[in-house]
């Protein structure tokens, strides 16, 4: 069976500064992998490269066996199969929640309005936002906005979801509702690559945890192994600081 995602020797530089220094990563279908590590370790950049938001400097990325980093690939077609959710939600402020969600299915997939809205309302209902369909994003709480952003990505029926620190911009009391949505997605079998600072959540939800440090994956393994008995001294140091900060 082909891997849902395969990253090979991925390197990415910004103006001569190398942010990713050779990343190798494989996600099987239905697998949930969490990327942990300090800010600036390259987690977000890795996700942006997989979504083709950032062109890679060298290396290859394959999604279900197709090399998406090939110059001949239509980036728009690739992106519609990969959902990404950002830290800052990035909902479109001039559209209602329903319009936010149905825009891409209608304009990119060419779905009729009624069908797109029906599917969107189903998804909103599933994630407890049915009564917010006609609201504008600025009328929603941060947690609701982020859930709406997740629904917007899901409406394209992606094969792979990328979550980029989706709870980092939220007030602590709103984190839970967003994590609940991600938990449900994981249970439904969605393949996900998640960059997160929520260690206890990573421990609970991930099949595998990757510790990134200065642009390389220093250590990876099942969460119980990484969190209980990390082998690499840098991982130990990182987790010790997290525990001291009371976040694990």
């Amino acid at each position: 069976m082909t891997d849902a995602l395969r990253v090979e020797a991925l390197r990415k530089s910004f103006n001569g500064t190398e942010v990713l220094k050779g990343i190798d990563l494989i996600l099987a279908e239905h697998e949930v992998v969490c990327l942990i590590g300090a800010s600036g370790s390259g987690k977000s950049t890795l996700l942006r490269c997989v979504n083709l938001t950032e062109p890679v400097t060298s290396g290859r990325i394959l999604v279900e066996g197709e090399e998406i980093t090939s110059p001949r690939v239509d980036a728009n077609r690739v992106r519609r199969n990969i959902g990404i959710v950002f830290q800052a939600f990035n909902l479109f402020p001039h559209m209602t929640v329903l319009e936010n969600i149905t825009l891409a299915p209608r304009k990119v997939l060419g779905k009729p309005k009624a069908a797109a809205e029906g599917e969107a309302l189903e998804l909103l209902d599933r994630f407890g936002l049915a009564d917010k369909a006609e609201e504008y994003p600025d009328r929603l709480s941060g947690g609701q906005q982020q859930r709406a952003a997740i629904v917007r990505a899901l409406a394209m029926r992606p094969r792979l979801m990328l979550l980029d620190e989706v709870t980092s911009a939220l007030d602590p009391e709103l984190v839970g509702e967003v994590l609940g949505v991600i938990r449900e997605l994981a249970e439904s079998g969605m393949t996900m690559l998640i960059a997160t600072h929520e260690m206890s959540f990573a421990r609970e939800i991930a099949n595998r945890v990757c510790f990134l440090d200065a642009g390389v994956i220093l250590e990876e393994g099942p969460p119980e192994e990484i969190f209980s008995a990390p082998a690499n001294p840098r991982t130990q140091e990182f987790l010790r600081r997290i525990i001291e900060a009371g976040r694990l």
Partner: protein
Amino acid sequence: MRASGTSGGRSILIALASTVLFAVVVVLVVSNAPGWPEVQRQFFNGGLFRESLGVIPEAFFLNVRIFLIAEVVILVFALVLAILRSLEGPVFFPLRALAIVYADFFRGIPTILVIYMLGFGAPALQISGIPRDPLFWGVVALVLVYSAYVSEVYRAGIESVHPSQAAAARSLGLSRAQALRFVILPQAVRRVMPPLLNDFIGLQKDTALVALLGPVEAFRQSQIEVAANFNYTPYLVTALLFVLLTIPLARLTDWLVARERRSRLALGAAR
């Protein structure tokens, strides 16, 4: 101008009193000026005022038509220029450069010169098929000049939309053009509505410049009336007509600015 708040009645009284006082002072100063009787005779002739009201509004209708036609064309043409200028990548360099040169050129030349050069120059070429009507070339000149300004307004709006909005749109699979059409432009245009309308207030007044090429619009008509009567009162009528046309647009602009500020505040509070 607006009196509101908890002490509304008192504020209104103060505003009213100060307005009346101000008006009285202005009237006293002007009417006590040494040349006032002569100015009054030359500019404020009641009979001629009524007479002009019968002739000039009809000519003014031409200004309104020039304005409306030019406005529609400018809105479209300027948007095309702004989009050309916002194109990324080395391939589009010539188009970007063209848009920049255009904006620099037509913002640099006085409108009156563009009108003269096009209005007298273009028909003189005697190319078969191109219109020789001075009115046509007057409108073209206004479109060329104002599109340069309005394209810059659009561009400011496009650049004010945060790049993360385009990133979110592209991440959903929308093409660059679709992201522009459905996500960037609607937000950009909303934001630049006030400066856009401001430029159109300028355009309303500059329709009078078309008179330089011959068409009898309000200003030219009032010149004719002035010459026939040796009295300046018709100018007063024309001025009033322009002001009357401008006021609704000016108030609409204010209202839009206030609405934009309110929505920004609401957005800030939600964050």
